[in-house]
C-alpha cells in the first residue's frame, strides 16, 4: 500500500516534468517562430489533426523519456538519490533518444497525413524514410541531446528552489 503510494507520487513527478518539458518546448518554439515571422507559414502547412497528433506524440515520448531518466533517481521527491551529474548525463542521453523517437513519429504522422491527402507516392515514402533514418536521426539525436541537457539543468535548478522553499518554511518559528 505504502509502496503504491510512493509509486503514484513518483509517477506524478514524472508526468509533471515530462509535460513541463513538452509544453515549454512547444510554447518557446511558437514564441521564437512567431517573433521571427515564420509561424504562419509553418502552421498553415500542417492540418489540425496532424498538428494534434504531433503534439500528442511529443508529449508521450517526452513523458516516457523522463520516466527512463528518473528511474530509481528519487525516493521522496524532490530529494534525489542519484548524483546530479549522473542525472544530467542520463537526461542528455535520453533527450537524444527522445529526439529520434519523436522524429520517427513525425515521419509516420506526416506520411499518413500525406497518404490521406493523396499527395504521396511510394517512391517519396522510400526516399523520405532513407533521409529520416540516416541524416535525420543524427540531427534529431543532437537536438534532443542539447534540449535534454538544458532541461536537466532547469529541472535541477527548480528542485533546488523547491528544497530552499521547503527548508526556509521549516526553519520559520
Amino acid at each position, binding site marked *: 500500500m505504502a509502496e503504491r*503510494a*510512493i509509486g503514484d*507520487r513518483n509517477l*506524478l*513527478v514524472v*508526468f*509533471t*516534468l515530462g*509535460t*513541463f518539458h*513538452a*509544453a*515549454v518546448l*512547444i*510554447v*518557446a518554439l*511558437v*514564441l521564437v517562430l*512567431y*517573433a521571427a*515571422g515564420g*509561424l*504562419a*507559414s509553418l*502552421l*498553415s502547412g*500542417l492540418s*489540425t489533426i496532424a*498538428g*494534434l497528433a504531433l*503534439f*500528442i506524440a511529443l*508529449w508521450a515520448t517526452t513523458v516516457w523519456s523522463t520516466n527512463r531518466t528518473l528511474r530509481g533517481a528519487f525516493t*521522496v*521527491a*524532490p*530529494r534525489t538519490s542519484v548524483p546530479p551529474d549522473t542525472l544530467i548525463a542520463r537526461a542528455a542521453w535520453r533527450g537524444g533518444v527522445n529526439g529520434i523517437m519523436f522524429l520517427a513519429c513525425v515521419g509516420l504522422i506526416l506520411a499518413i497525413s500525406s497518404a490521406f491527402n493523396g499527395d504521396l507516392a511510394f517512391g517519396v515514402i522510400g526516399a523520405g524514410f532513407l533521409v529520416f533514418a540516416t541524416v535525420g536521426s543524427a540531427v534529431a539525436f543532437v537536438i534532443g541531446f542539447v534540449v535534454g541537457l538544458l532541461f536537466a539543468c*532547469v*529541472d535541477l535548478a*527548480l*528542485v533546488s*528552489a*523547491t528544497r530552499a*522553499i*521547503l527548508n526556509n*518554511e521549516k526553519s520559520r518559528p
Partner: protein
Amino acid sequence: MAAILGGALLVWWLGARRNRASAAVVLDVAERYEWIFWGAIGLQVMTGVGNLGAFGQALPPSASGWGTKLIVKLVAVLALALLSVPRTLAVVAMVGTKQPRAGLLSAFYGGTTVMVVAIAGLAVWLAHG
C-alpha cells in the same frame, strides 16, 4: 482553463480555512489537482497552437498590437509552467513526509490563481482584438 482555475481556487480556499478542513484532506486534494493541472496544461498548449494554426496566413504579425498581446500571453504561460514545477514538487514532498504546511500551500495556490486569472484576462483581451 476552468479546471486549472477552479482547482487552484479550491485548494487555496481549503488551505485558508485550515481550522475547518484537515491538513491531510487539503494535501490529498492538492495532489489530485496537480495531476489535473499538468494534464490541462498539455491540452491547453495543444489546443492553443491549433487555434493559432486556424488563422493560417491571416495570423497578424508579431509587430502588431495583437501580436504583442500574444507574445505577452505566451511568456505568461511559460512563467506559469516554470513556477508550477516547484509547487508540484513541494506538494509531492509534503505528501511523502506527511507534513502539510498550510501557509505554504496557500501561497502556492494563491499565486497560481492570480497567474491563471491574468492569463485568462489576456486571452479575453486577445479574443476581442
